[in-house]
Structure formats: C-alpha cells, structure tokens
C-alpha cells in the first residue's frame, strides 16, 4: 500500500509518501514569514499553504519516485489546528482522492504525533507512555497498541510551547520562544530563581502552565525588569530563561516518569517541537537511563509537524479499514479519542 500523507494543521506545509510502512519521502516547507510577525499569522498561514501545497506534494512524489497514479490511499490532517490552514490540506487531499479514485483517510494530528516514533527504527514496545509537547499541545498518553491509546492527562490551560512563547514575549527576546529561551538558558543557572512547579505534588497527569506565566510576570514587575534593562543585563536574562525552563522541564519529566512507572511501560516516547529543547532532552536521557527505560525521540524533522507521521497514521488506519467520508469537516479543537 502506498500512502500520501498531507499535513497543514499549522504553519508547516508538508507531504510524505510511505510504502508498506516504509518512508519514501518527506518534504516540509516552513513558513519563515511567521518569525517576522512574532507568531503564526492565520491569514498568512492559510494563504501560504495555498501557495505551497502543490509544489510540496509534487516534490514528495518526485523524491519518492512515485507517480500520482501509484498512490492508493490519501491521508490528510483534519484537526486540531488553525481552521483555515487545515482546510487547505484537507480539501487538497480529498480532491486528489476523488481525482485518482482512491480512498481517503482523515488523520488526527495528535494521533499522528503518537506514531511519529514508528517512522524509523528502532521502534518502541507496547505499552509505552508518550509525551507530546508543542506550541499547541501538552499531553500524556498511554499507548497500548497501534492506534490504541488512553489519554492520561493534558494541559488545563497553556501548552508548554505556548508558555515558552509567552515568556519570551514578556522578556522581549523574540519568537519562537522555545529555541530562544533554550539558547539563552545555557549561560544561566536553573536554580537562580525559584518559579513554582505547578501540579508537581498532585497525583494526576494534568498540566497547568498559566500560573507559571503569571509568576514570571510578577517577578519582572516586582524587580522592575523591563526589556531594556534585561538587554543590558544578559546574565540576569540567562538566569531567568534557565529558571523558567527548569520549572517546565521538571513538571514534564516528573509526570512522564510517574506514568511510565505506574503503567509498567518499558519505553517512553516524546514528540512535538518542544522535544527539541536541550534541557528537556538531557533530563529525559538521564532519568530514563537511571530507570532502565528505553527513550524514543524522533529525529527533529519528525518531531515537529510533518507529512511522514500523517502518512504513517493514515497507513495504520487504512490497514484497519478506517477510511473517512469525503464530508469529513475540519475540526480546530479535535481531541484524541474522538471519532470522525
């Protein structure tokens, strides 16, 4: 079975070709235009998707050495994400499925992140606990089989990546916040400022990063740390970044390993853009080695939004006969576990 996967849920236009579970190509066009505007600009995002979708799909087919007629299933993301952006890839995928007379599979973006560790060898053993952390998502999921999972917990307010972005905004250091804070934090002390570790003592797997954002805001206010002053005091800025980052990393890591222990997982998997954070990676490597757990983090291009994971999820769904109706709508706040 040869599957074309299409991803347009946010700011990446990406397409991939997968044959019988092996990836043949993955092409991603990132909309760098967002950096200039300090965030994902929805109208720009959907317009750029419209411009990019055809060349990206053509490129993915060419790199795979597959003609459109060689595709026998088309998978596209239908949520969650920006409604205008999702619609571009979803409509393109459906139209191509009609044109080629092949079945269509709608893919949940979060579900796709969960299978991103199956794109390349080695692959995790079931059951494993997966942490998906990005600008839009912070979720802890117990994966018991292919496309079989239980949502253990998610964020009650801000996603971890969003917390990084908003903190970077308060500190006046640019977008996207995660990479900038990661970089500046390398020269700072994670123990310099004690930010709260929300829900660290609670039993559940829910996350909350909104309070952390508020305490950064009050810290800056209390010490009259304006953007200008922080620019003049790089040491202080580095300490703020390192301490803020440490609070997020502590919570993510603690909950992930608690869940792995309780559910008898031998593997843990991490996906989403925040998986690129170097402090998080170091802690994950250290803690998993200590507990003799196998740690899986996909290569960066499969951590962030990509067509390969959509193709993989589409392939797994097609194998189970889970095809979608062409009336399938775009669902901006699609949850996992929801059925199309």
């Amino acid at each position: 079975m040869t599957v074309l996967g299409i991803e347009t849920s946010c700011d990446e236009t990406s397409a991939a070709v997968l044959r019988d579970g092996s990836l043949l190509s993955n092409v991603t066009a990132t909309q760098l235009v967002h950096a200039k505007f300090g965030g994902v600009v929805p109208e720009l995002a959907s317009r750029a998707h419209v411009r990019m979708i055809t060349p990206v799909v053509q490129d993915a087919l060419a790199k795979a050495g597959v003609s459109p007629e060689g595709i026998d299933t088309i998978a596209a993301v239908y949520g969650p994400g920006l409604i205008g952006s999702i619609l571009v890839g979803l409509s393109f995928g459906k139209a191509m499925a009609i044109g080629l007379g092949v079945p269509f599979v709608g893919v949940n973006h979060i579900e796709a992140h969960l299978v991103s560790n199956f794109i390349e060898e080695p692959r995790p053993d079931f059951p494993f606990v997966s942490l998906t952390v990005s600008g839009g998502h912070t979720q802890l999921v117990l994966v018991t089989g292919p496309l079989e999972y239980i949502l253990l917990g998610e964020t009650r307010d801000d996603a971890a990546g969003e917390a990084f972005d908003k903190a970077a905004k308060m500190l006046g250091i640019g977008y996207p916040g995660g990479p900038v804070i990661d970089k500046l934090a390398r020269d700072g002390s994670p123990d310099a400022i004690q930010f709260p570790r929300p829900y660290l003592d609670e039993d559940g797997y829910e996350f909350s990063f909104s309070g952390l954002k508020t305490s950064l805001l009050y810290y800056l206010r209390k010490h009259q740390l304006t953007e200008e002053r922080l620019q003049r005091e790089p040491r202080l800025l580095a300490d703020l970044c390192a301490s803020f980052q440490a609070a997020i990393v502590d919570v993510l890591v603690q909950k992930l390993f608690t869940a792995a222990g309780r559910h008898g997982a031998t593997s843990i998997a991490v996906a989403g853009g925040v998986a690129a954070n170097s402090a998080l990676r170091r802690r994950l490597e250290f803690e998993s080695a200590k507990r003799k757990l196998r740690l899986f983090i996909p290569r960066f291009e499969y951590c962030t939004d990509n067509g390969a994971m959509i193709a993989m999820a589409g392939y797994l769904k097609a194998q189970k006969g889970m095809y979608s109706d062409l009336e399938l709508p775009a669902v901006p706040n699609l949850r996992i576990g929801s059925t199309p």
Partner: protein
Amino acid sequence: MTGRYRTTSEGETRKVAAACGAELRRGDVVALYGDLGTGKTQFVKGLCEAFGVSENVSSPTFVLLHRYRGRDRSGRELFIHHLDLYRVGSPEEVLDLGYEELFFGDGLVVVEWAERLGPLLPPRRIDVHLTAGVGENDREIIIERVITATQGARVGR
C-alpha cells in the same frame, strides 16, 4: 452581572465568570481585555461551567478558536466559541476564522484580546476587563454591558 469584582484566586475568578455566564443568552458576545496572565482563560472556564461544558477548556492561543458544546437553561444544545486573538495581526484575519458564522450565529462567542477585533467588535456586547492587582493572585474584574453606535465599518481585502 455587571459590576466591579475583586478576586484573590483563579477559583474566585471562575466563580465571578460562572455568575456572569448564568445571565448570558444565545448570540451574546463577551469581549475580554487584559494582559498576559490576568486570567482571561480562567474566566472562559468559569463561563463554560455555567453552561455545563464537560470538555477541557484550555487556551486557544495556538489554534485561535476552540468550540465547546454546552446546554442552555432549557436544556438545548449551545455552542460556545472561544477565540483568542493573541496572534492575530489585523482584524481582517478574523474574517478567515468564519467571523460572520460565529458572531451572527446562535451560539455564544467569547473573545480573548478582543481589542484586536478593531472595527469588527460588535456594537452590542459584554465587556470584561481583567487587571492584575498588587498581590500575585489579586485581580480586578469589571463587567459591563455595552451598546455603541454602529460604525458602519468596512473591513475587507
């Protein structure tokens, strides 16, 4: 519903919002104003409680729009559209989110960073201003019903 409230915890902010929600009706638009970290998302959580929303109400900053299913007082299904315009650069971009369907539908619309709607801000609405107090959890919440003259604004491409 209208008035000035002081809260000292996220829970209290949700309670004020739930009381406000109990007086809202279909088609109402609630415009939220306040800086990062002043409790706008908490306020939406409270509003949603008033309509029996069982889904997780979280920040839509990243995806701009969340939709929750609730029930009105007669038990009829009601959708709450939760917008967050933090990343939106100009009012025209809101048109891409399905502005007409949302703001002139029979659901409830709650907008974070409502000032970014500019001329698209509906003349009849409920304004909620959230400001941070001296203590880390102190908030002042001002709720008012607003009716402004129609501006006849043109927003388009």
